[in-house]
């Protein structure tokens, strides 16, 4: 018998499924497709305010951090750091203070945990930064990054454009294509040779994140040795290499822990449970041939917000939760959902499910709709995570809390 069905394969879903499986539960993870990790920087953003934990105490009680609790955040982060160490993808940083990492636009990204290769780029670091773009790579602009950094008062020692071998390309390369090239030792040899002369005197070099996909630690170390300087990575446009590395690590973790993965099917609707409709018996998935019923003791919705369809906004101004049609409170005035600039905070981004103290979605009277259905991650109401800089922290903390609740 399956103990837990997790729906959604983003950071929330993967983390929740792996965690539950390691706690001894039989877990099935269902997802229509992959989640948003391929779009992300691979870091764990907790709160872009200094110091992050203290700021958390000032959050509204409906905020997902308050619902999940600080203990859940701490435990999840500890779990996460341990896992990443074991998966060969060590992270640095801690909850007491943000790192400030340079972005491809030369802005400053506040984050609590970053992969080691990115953490080396901390703007508080002593060594001056040399920015290096890659010739023909359209997803990183050295001049934009350099001028941005200069304007926020970060001294950029130098900006260079580094050549890449085999320039006669028949198609544009994404960062993943470069990352795969870097897995090849002969490529690295040729690259390092042509780069060394252009990097004399450089102490800390920031390049677009492309140092390997599956063997990143080895690739990074090798390039560091060959160039004789610190190298750090700057994430660029999706598909994001650091995001994909994190996704691979979490998927491996989940599969090793025995999570059963069903990819490519949409979960839609519940399997009738007993108890007069107070329990969900599982979920119905729409597979290639038709619907299939997956039964389980509990269901954890990690389907995200609007981006990947955990929530759906309708023309009439209403918003729907897409698996169980759980209630989402919204005014019905669709013009009130967005604000004038994408850079501003957006009302729609705070929409989602309200949950009780056990992370169970509640109805109009504040009572859990189902005894055994839980929600975590972007599906939760109460936070514009892009504006707050809190996306991954909420994913981890709420996933932890929801799993703990579902298994007790």
């Amino acid at each position, binding site marked *: 018998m399956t103990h837990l069905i997790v729906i959604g394969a983003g950071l929330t879903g993967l983390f929740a499924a792996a965690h539950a499986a390691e706690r001894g539960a039989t877990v099935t993870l269902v997802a229509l497709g992959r989640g948003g990790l391929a*779009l992300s920087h691979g870091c764990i953003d907790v709160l872009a305010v200094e110091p992050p934990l203290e700021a958390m105490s000032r959050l509204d009680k409906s905020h997902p951090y308050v619902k999940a609790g600080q203990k859940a955040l701490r435990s999840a982060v500890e779990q996460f750091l341990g896992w990443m160490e074991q998966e060969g993808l060590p992270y640095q940083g801690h909850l007491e203070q943000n790192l400030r990492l340079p972005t491809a636009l030369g802005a400053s990204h506040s984050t609590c945990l970053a992969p080691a290769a990115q953490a080396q780029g901390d703007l508080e670091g002593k060594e001056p930064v040399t920015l290096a773009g890659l010739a023909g790579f359209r997803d990183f602009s050295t001049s934009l990054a350099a001028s*941005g950094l200069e304007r926020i008062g970060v001294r950029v020692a130098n900006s260079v454009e580094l050549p890449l071998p085999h320039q006669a390309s028949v198609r544009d390369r994404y960062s993943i294509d470069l990352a795969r090239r870097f897995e090849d030792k002969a490529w690295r040899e040729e690259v390092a040779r042509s780069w060394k002369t252009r990097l004399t005197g450089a102490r800390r070099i920031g390049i677009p994140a492309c140092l390997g996909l599956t063997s990143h630690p080895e690739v990074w170390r090798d390039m560091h040795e060959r160039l004789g300087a610190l190298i750090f990575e700057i994430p660029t446009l999706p598909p994001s290499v650091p995001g994909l590395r994190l996704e691979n690590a979490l998927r491996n973790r989940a599969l090793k822990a025995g999570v059963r993965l069903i990819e490519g099917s949409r979960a839609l609707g519940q399997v009738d449970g007993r108890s007069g409709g107070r329990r969900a018996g599982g979920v119905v998935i729409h597979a290639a041939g038709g619907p299939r019923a997956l039964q389980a003791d509990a269901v954890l919705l990690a389907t995200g917000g609007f981006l990947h369809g955990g929530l759906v906004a309708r023309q009439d101004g209403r918003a729907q939760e897409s698996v169980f049609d759980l209630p989402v409170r919204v005014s019905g005035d669709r013009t009130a959902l967005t604000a004038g600039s994408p850079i501003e905070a957006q009302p729609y981004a705070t929409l989602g499910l309200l949950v009780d103290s056990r992370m169970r979605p509640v109805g109009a009277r504040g009572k859990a709709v189902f005894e055994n259905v839980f929600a975590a991650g972007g599906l939760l109401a109460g936070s514009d995570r892009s504006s707050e800089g809190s996306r991954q922290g909420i994913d981890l903390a709420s996933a932890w809390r929801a799993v703990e609740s579902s298994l007790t």
Partner: protein
Amino acid sequence: MPALSTQLLVIGGGATGLGIAWDATLRGLKVVLVEQGDLGQGTSGRYHGLLHSGARYVISDPTSAADCASENLILRRIVPHTIEDTGGLFVSLPTDPLDYPDAWLDACRKQGVPAEEISPAAALEREPLLNSRLGRAFLVQDAALDSFDLSHTLVDAIRRAGGTVWLRQRVETLHVESGRVVRADVRSFRTGEVVTVGAEVFVNAAGPFAGEVAASAGIALPLALGKGTMVAMAERLVHAVVNRCKPPADGDILVPIGTVCILGTTDTPVASGKELSIEPWEIDLLLAEGEALIPTLPDHRALRAWAGIRALYQPPQSDGQPTRTLPRAHAIIDHSANDGLAGLITVIGGKLTTFRLMAEETLDLVCRSLGVEAPCQTSETSLPDPAHGQLSPTKRLAGFDRDGSGPKPVETICECELVTRSDLATAIERDGIDELDDLRRDLRLGMGPCQAAFCAYRAAGIVHDLRAPHMADAGLVDFLNERWRGMRPLAWGHTLRQMELIRRIYLDLLCTSTAPEGQG
């Protein structure tokens, strides 16, 4: 203040103004054209994309219909590369007046507008997405005309013939001396500098801003401004222009143009040329009317919405008439005769389809007032493709090859619309650049489904590299704000998902909000 003198100063660089300036060069006149924005930033760049066959107006506005029918043929001859011969369909739905099609067909014949009835089955075979319950169907000679291509073509022709075209320059004041307009103050958007231009004749082709231009010479122009909203769907849902066969109303035309198709339009009175905001009811109406024609419309992606403003001449006796029912035919006002002010002619109204005819009539008047004998040559003069600007889908794919093994256009910056780095560099070198939207108008950068989610950063990087000298920053945030503005009226379903992806990239990943003043 430095001064410049010419014979003809044309105010306004939409299709009307450009057509007038071009006609002027062919008649041997010295001409300067001044446009306050970028090419295509005004009404001509916001229009529906339709080269009218005239069929739409045969009953409601026969003069306009006849003009459209004859100009349609002329434009196909002289600027063929701007036109895609999509053909057009008029279809009636079960809810449309049953007696209209026959009356309409009759009127088509009378006006010399070709229209041929086909069976509903034949119509559905051509356009499988159309409502299968359609009643009657007719083929007409509508087509799609790309106004950006047209603008570039005309500017190219004007300049080659020795004419002057100034973009991002605004006529602020017209100076009158002894009952005659003698010079104009023109301010540059880029430098703020003011130049005085003297001319023998001034043509006011400023569209929705014609009232302001005329007012600066002390003339009160009775203009009716009607705002029309349009929605672009991400794909060519139809391959021919599709019209409803009923009395013209809101939302009854669907035009395929390039890689998209455009649902339009509405007609709301506004007070100024700057009122371009979109109301929810307009979107709901356009989508509902679109759904009547294409029942699966809600399953398709709506890219963005925008508005353009038509200026129509409102003769005194038609005060209070709804703007939709005002004659679409153009008006050419000789202020010398009308208002006792010499040297100024205002050209208002009309359709983009009739721009050449409007220009011809205007230049006839201009030549008369200059005492110049010069017949119009525009209908016989084919214009070459300047080989830049927006490209039709087939042109864009020319770089790709059949067997999949040859070189591809690399450094594709906008993947949705297949715009390459060299396209961008060429455009910047040729025209300079004031904002990233210039590249959007020139090349369709950021006009595809992802609405610049990826190409905004890439293009900003290229512009930054080329250090366009007068740009303080790469204009990234402004560009994103413009895309957002177009998506907001459609912010639900998949359009909202696309908006959210933009935030993931520009906020989460690039942290654009923390980028300081001037960075963008």
